[in-house]
């Protein structure tokens, strides 16, 4: 029966379905239940609600009937007796699909299955040589001779004889240590990890097989957990293993030490294929074998290794040796007074937990069929976000993900109820996990199993998932910032999962989101000294969390609400040497911390930081101490007297934000003087304005206020035959998106390029019905307006003139009115007559036109819609959005500059550029909304490089939610139809729809052609590549350098004939003292908007290049 098999294919996790496959009806019922659960996961904002609703799940039958499928039971009754037949199977299929869609399960589910199929590792394939090596290793290791109780010097010598370094952790054993080192056959050898669980994924770097060797407890002493003794013995054991394997003649492999998950206390041995082509060469298996020494759980007392305990006593060799000696002797009772060493303890305990965790995960995968798939999904998700189990990657990897699911299957909700139920599908489980990570704050509200509150450390900023049976905080490798990042990513993803309107599968699983340049709004590279541990003097040995911790605290305090997230990443530590060499330690050099910031765009360039009022003595003193000489006592407008810090970006190349970082880091963090910032360069590429203001849109203020004046003047006109109904702006300079700032000087020395304005009069029956006559009537209106404006010009210096356009197209708009204020602003007013559209459409529909006239008319219609209907709407919305997203305006300007500098602007309309930029703000997934020019620009470039415009429409909702799901569907349908009718993309190449223009063609009808669009994509691709590869050292300007080598010919224009050149002529006075004060003259007005280049271009394209209109041609200014 086809429906059943289909059902099972799409939901293989549906265990019950397979048992009742003969009864189609019950298959549906079970799948319904499942959907319900999923639905509730979607709605439940916290773990508790999910659970509660899950309890109600007991009566699914009724629900289903309520759900609107009342015909269902009947049908089922009919079906059961004679369960074959085309009609019924067709019905069943319909029913199954209906059910699936009714509960929002859709394409996402299919995609998930597809992804799992592709990504799942097939272990049987090509694993034979690796298996053989594993067996070989086992027998080799078991054959090693015992070596017991060797003193330190002898042990070192014994290993060094074979040229192998003992990877002692820092601090290593001193020469006079009393304890002895031993090697004995491991008590167990076993495979753990994803190889044992079958949860590995295909990835470029291959996978690893974890072989755990349990060191026998007789080689340890009771007190070995103290002062790194265990780790020293472990290092010796590891080195002995290495020696043994190297010595053996049967097996030739490559060996190396690495730190397990960047944990400096726990080196492990990595066996990789030799690549010699023998039958033991397991290169084809694409894996490495990791030998991990472990200990039995009862080797040490778990209680003494709880996170609250101290296990590293102060050293006895320094100046305070005398007092310390006594402390160390007295042992544990003294330990309570010392600072706890949670990361040391956890590192040690983690060596005991390989088997317990394996069995826990195994049990979970036994009890819950979709557990493994959920693990794989989580793994892919984490990897795409650059998160991993290594400390340098955040300390939350697939293992932590899996163990967290295993715990959540048991509990974690309110009153200890489980958050995830074993009946969940992989998708539901993934969703529940993401939801949990996003909403539960594991720092303030830790998850503790099998233990009481006493295991918490006071004021700890670390997340806690405490596994009481092993005494271990599973998340011990995480840092406060990596946890915040994880939470941030989970929040973003949870939002995507709950958004049912669009298919977000790509941004959740398929797109990489770990590139720092597009992920963070601002990046700082901070050089730090290589040796950190000694500087901090802390007993807990994981030094690479302490120094960044300080840095993080300082940054967080200094930046305050300017940032929403600070993430630090320390480059991974230098791996331990395998060979022992005579030379000194490998030169540490400098290490780097890469700090990434997510900014609050409204706050990050604030000039004043307010501190506490002066009368709060203590706080004020603290504030002064933090800010040093920068802090000042100031009286503010509202009368308050506050401690404050003032910033300005006038004299510095750095933005305010980066100045603060520079200042506080060099003031408070030792050894971190050299800071490189990345992000400001992008802002600096934009032309600066002389207008200063707090708002990001303030450079455009003169033009905007000029527009307000115009509106007022036009509304005040008396004596027009019709009243003005609406005056709307329709120019990029009036929506904050021109590259050059209009009226940059704002002092009345230069005129602005006329900005398009559309005036609509109240409707009247007196307009002629003839299109040509309409145009003439418009001219008459303009003449009248001009006359009235000049008459009332006494108060203002207003100049008007009427210009003609579209001379050869009598049905198009024929004239415009230039209103020029002598203070600088200039506008180009056109009259919108709403009937024109109907007239044009009527003409087109009438079918009485010659093909040529038809072409002309449809062009006129398109032009009319663009100029009078969508242009003003677009401008209005874009203006609003520029206020909503502060980074939008500068980003758009930079994106436009990019298009201009690559000579693409004659082909690609400004509105399209704006829509493309806007898309990255409206739909920023998989990231947060960009808050800086860098992120906005780079993500736009990334989008352009990935946009497959042949099959993907660009849909941007410029309003908040005006575009419904059905609208989007309609647009997609239109797009599909368009592509079907024109598969070669001759008529329309790019498809860009918005909530206004749902046809998607208004901004792209006149271009770009296919070659231009392809060039755009390839240019974006290479720009993105160069950013990715160049990183922090690259010169951003190189992205903006045009390449001319692909053109067949290039026309270089003399600069003095360009619009800018002509306007500049008058400033060429040689003698400075002869220069007149600059004012706007009649000549300036006469030459306003005179652009010979544009005329030249239009002549070229219309007259000459008609045959070559698919040719790519552009003009370069030199």
């Amino acid at each position: 029966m086809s429906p059943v098999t289909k059902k099972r294919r799409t939901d293989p996790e549906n265990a019950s379905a397979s048992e009742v496959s003969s009864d189609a009806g019950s298959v549906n019922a079970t799948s319904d239940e499942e959907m319900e659960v999923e639905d509730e996961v979607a709605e439940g904002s916290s773990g508790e609600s999910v659970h509660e609703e899950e309890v109600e799940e007991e009566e699914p039958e009724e629900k289903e009937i309520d759900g609107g499928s009342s015909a269902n039971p009947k049908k089922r009754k009919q079906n059961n007796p004679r369960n074959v037949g085309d009609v019924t199977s067709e019905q069943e299929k319909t029913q199954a699909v209906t059910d699936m869609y009714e509960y929002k399960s859709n394409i996402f589910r299919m995609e998930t299955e597809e992804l799992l199929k592709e990504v799942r590792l097939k272990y049987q394939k090509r694993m034979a040589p690796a298996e053989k090596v594993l067996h070989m290793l086992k027998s080799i290791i078991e054959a090693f001779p015992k070596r017991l109780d060797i003193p330190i010097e002898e042990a070192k010598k014994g290993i060094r004889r074979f040229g192998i370094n003992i990877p002692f952790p820092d601090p290593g054993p001193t020469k006079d240590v009393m304890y002895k080192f031993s090697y004995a056959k491991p008590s167990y050898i076993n495979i753990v990890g994803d190889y044992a669980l079958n949860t590995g994924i295909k990835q470029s770097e291959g996978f690893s097989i974890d072989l755990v060797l349990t060191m026998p407890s007789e080689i340890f002493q009771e007190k070995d957990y103290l002062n790194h003794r265990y780790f020293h013995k472990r290092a010796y054991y590891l080195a002995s293993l290495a020696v043994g394997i190297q010595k053996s003649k049967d097996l030739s492999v490559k060996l190396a030490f690495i730190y397990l998950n960047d944990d400096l206390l726990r080196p492990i041995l990595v066996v990789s294929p030799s690549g010699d082509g023998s039958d033991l060469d397991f290169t084809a298996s694409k894996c490495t074998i990791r030998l991990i020494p472990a200990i039995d759980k009862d080797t040490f007392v778990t209680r003494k290794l709880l996170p609250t305990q101290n296990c590293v006593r102060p050293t006895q060799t320094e100046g305070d040796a005398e007092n310390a000696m006594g402390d160390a002797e007295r042992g544990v009772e003294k330990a309570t007074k010392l600072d706890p060493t949670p990361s040391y303890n956890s590192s040690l305990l983690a060596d005991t937990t390989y088997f317990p965790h394996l069995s826990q995960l195994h049990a979970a995968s036994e009890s819950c069929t979709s557990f493994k798939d959920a693990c794989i999904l989580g793994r892919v998700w984490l990897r795409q976000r650059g998160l991993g189990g290594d400390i340098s990657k955040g300390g939350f990897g697939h293992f932590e993900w899996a163990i967290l699911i295993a715990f959540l299957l048991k509990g974690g909700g309110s009153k200890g109820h489980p958050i995830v139920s074993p009946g969940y599908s992989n998708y539901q489980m993934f969703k529940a996990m993401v939801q949990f990570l996003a909403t539960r704050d594991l720092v303030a509200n830790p998850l503790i199993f099998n233990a009481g509150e006493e295991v918490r450390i006071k004021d700890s900023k670390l997340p806690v998932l405490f596994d009481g049976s092993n005494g271990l905080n599973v998340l011990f490798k995480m840092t406060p910032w990596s946890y915040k990042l994880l939470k941030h990513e989970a929040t973003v993803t949870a939002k995507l999962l709950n958004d049912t309107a669009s298919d977000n599968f790509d941004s959740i699983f398929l797109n990489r989101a770990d590139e720092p340049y597009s992920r963070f709004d601002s990046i700082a590279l901070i050089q730090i000294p290589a040796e950190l541990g000694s500087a901090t003097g802390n007993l807990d040995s994981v030094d690479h969390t302490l120094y960044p911790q300080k840095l993080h605290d300082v940054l967080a305090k200094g930046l305050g609400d300017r940032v929403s997230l600070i993430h630090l990443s320390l480059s991974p530590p230098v791996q331990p040497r395998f060979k022992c060499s005579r030379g000194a330690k490998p030169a540490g050099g400098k290490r780097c911390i890469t700090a990434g910031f997510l900014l609050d765009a409204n706050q990050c360039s604030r000039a004043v930081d307010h501190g506490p009022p002066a009368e709060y003595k203590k706080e004020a003193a603290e504030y002064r101490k933090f800010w040093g000489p920068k802090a000042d006592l100031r009286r503010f407008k509202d009368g308050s007297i506050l401690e404050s810090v003032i910033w300005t970006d006038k004299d510095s190349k750095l933005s305010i934000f980066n100045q603060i970082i520079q200042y506080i880091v060099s003031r408070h963090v030792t050894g971190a003087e050299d800071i490189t910032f990345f992000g400001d360069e992008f802002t600096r590429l934009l032309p600066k304005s002389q207008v200063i203001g707090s708002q990001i849109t303030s450079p455009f203020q003169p033009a905007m206020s000029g527009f307000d004046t115009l509106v007022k003047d036009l509304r005040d006109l008396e004596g027009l035959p019709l009243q003005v109904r609406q005056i709307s702006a329709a120019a990029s300079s009036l929506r904050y998106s021109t590259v050059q700032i209009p009226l940059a000087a704002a002092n009345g020395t230069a005129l602005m390029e006329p900005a398009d304005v559309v005036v609509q009069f109240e409707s009247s029956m007196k307009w002629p019905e003839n299109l040509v006559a309409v145009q003439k009537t418009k001219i008459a209106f303009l003449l009248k307006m001009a006359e009235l404006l000049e008459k009332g010009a006494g108060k203002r210096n207003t100049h008007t003139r009427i210009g003609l356009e579209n001379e050869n197209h009598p049905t198009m708009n024929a004239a415009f009115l230039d209103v020029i204020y002598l203070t600088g602003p200039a506008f180009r007013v056109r009259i919108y007559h709403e009937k024109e559209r109907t007239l044009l459409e009527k003409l087109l529909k009438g079918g009485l036109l010659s093909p040529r006239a038809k072409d002309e008319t449809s062009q006129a219609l398109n032009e009319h819609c663009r100029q009078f209907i969508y242009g003003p709407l677009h401008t209005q919305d874009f203006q609003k959005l520029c206020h909503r997203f502060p980074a939008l305006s500068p980003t758009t300007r930079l994106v436009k500059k990019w298009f201009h500098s690559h000579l693409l602007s004659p082909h690609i309309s400004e509105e399209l550029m704006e829509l493309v930029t806007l898309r990255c703000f409206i739909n920023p997934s998989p990231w947060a909304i960009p808050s800086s020019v860098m992120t906005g620009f780079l993500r736009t470039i990334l989008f352009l490089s990935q946009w497959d415009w042949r099959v993907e429409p660009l849909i941007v909702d410029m309003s908040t939610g005006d575009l419904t799901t059905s609208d989007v569907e309609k647009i997609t349908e239109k797009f599909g139809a368009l592509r079907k009718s024109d598969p070669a993309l001759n008529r329309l190449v790019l498809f860009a729809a918005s909530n206004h223009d749902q046809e998607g063609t208004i901004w792209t009808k006149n271009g770009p052609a296919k070659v231009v669009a392809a060039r755009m994509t390839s240019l974006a691709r290479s720009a993105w590549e160069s950013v990715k590869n160049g990183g922090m050292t690259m010169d951003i300007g190189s992205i903006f350098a045009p390449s001319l080598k692909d053109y067949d010919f290039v026309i270089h224009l003399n600069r003095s004939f360009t619009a800018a050149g002509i306007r500049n002529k008058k400033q060429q006075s040689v003698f400075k003292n002869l220069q007149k004060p600059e004012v706007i003259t009649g000549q300036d007005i006469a030459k306003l908007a005179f652009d010979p280049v544009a005329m030249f271009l239009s002549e070229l394209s219309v007259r000459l290049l008609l045959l070559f209109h698919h040719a790519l041609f552009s003009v370069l200014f030199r």
Partner: protein
Amino acid sequence: MSKLPEPPSKINDYLVLPLKLSSSDTALPATHYLYLRRHQPKLPTANDTRSLFAVNVPVDATEWHLRDLFSSIGGGRVERVIFDGEGEKQVVPVVRLDSRKRKRSDESDTAKEAVEVKTWDRDLRQSGSTAVLVFVDKSSSEVSLKAVANLTKSKKKTVVFWGEGLSEEHKVPPLGISRVTSNSFYQIALVLTFYVPGYLTHHNLRFPTKALLQQSVDAFMFAFAEQEAEDLRARARRREPDEDGFITVIRGGRVAPARQEEAAAVAEKKKGKAEHKDFYRFQMREVKKERHQQLLAKFEQDKRKVAEKKGMRKFRPL
């Protein structure tokens, strides 16, 4: 540039006239080919016998250019030149003034002259466009054809320069691009030099004085009103029988032909009001079935989409 083969002197019934683009600049010399034959339009007109049809007219051609060309090669005199498309370019309603009216209002006559406000002082042709050359009489057109034929046949290879002989008194306005030498496409890159005055003139012409504009608008409006009134009168006349009791039949009876979609829209509107959609059981069943079908279609579509994506190997992100 590789050496091009010698061009034929005749293609079908077109005569080929090579024109050297004289180069005052340092650019490479280039040749433009003009194709000529007798004018034989599908719908014959009175002037056909004394006309020649030209294809691939240079972009900067003006009437003066062609006149001088034929006089320089010893052809006949060109009376006028009708460039491509100019014949039919009459989209603007033709202003027909009643003779009676014209006498009455003199000022409308002067206004009519100002109707056309030109913004370009000289038009450009499209590349590869055509023109009809009307000669003064049939013989001069014959002579011209012969002259062209002789020119191409003669061994001497007399070189004809385009636009060279343009006499001073026939001053054509300069172009934005000084086109003394060039007009063939591949030359543009090489010889184009800016001649801004051409564009400046255009820029200035684009902004005519308000008085002039007012005049032209007034004239148009006047004519337009006249025509509307005339149409109205004609319509009125249609209804009124003359003294003999006959009604004169005049063109253009109906306002516009009724359109199908309009009728459909009206019918749709009516239908929507009258019917109940969920009254009968079968209606509900149908609606439901339809929805199921839609979902099924969507399912199939999604499946296809996923398969497509799979085909593009998108599901291998790592």
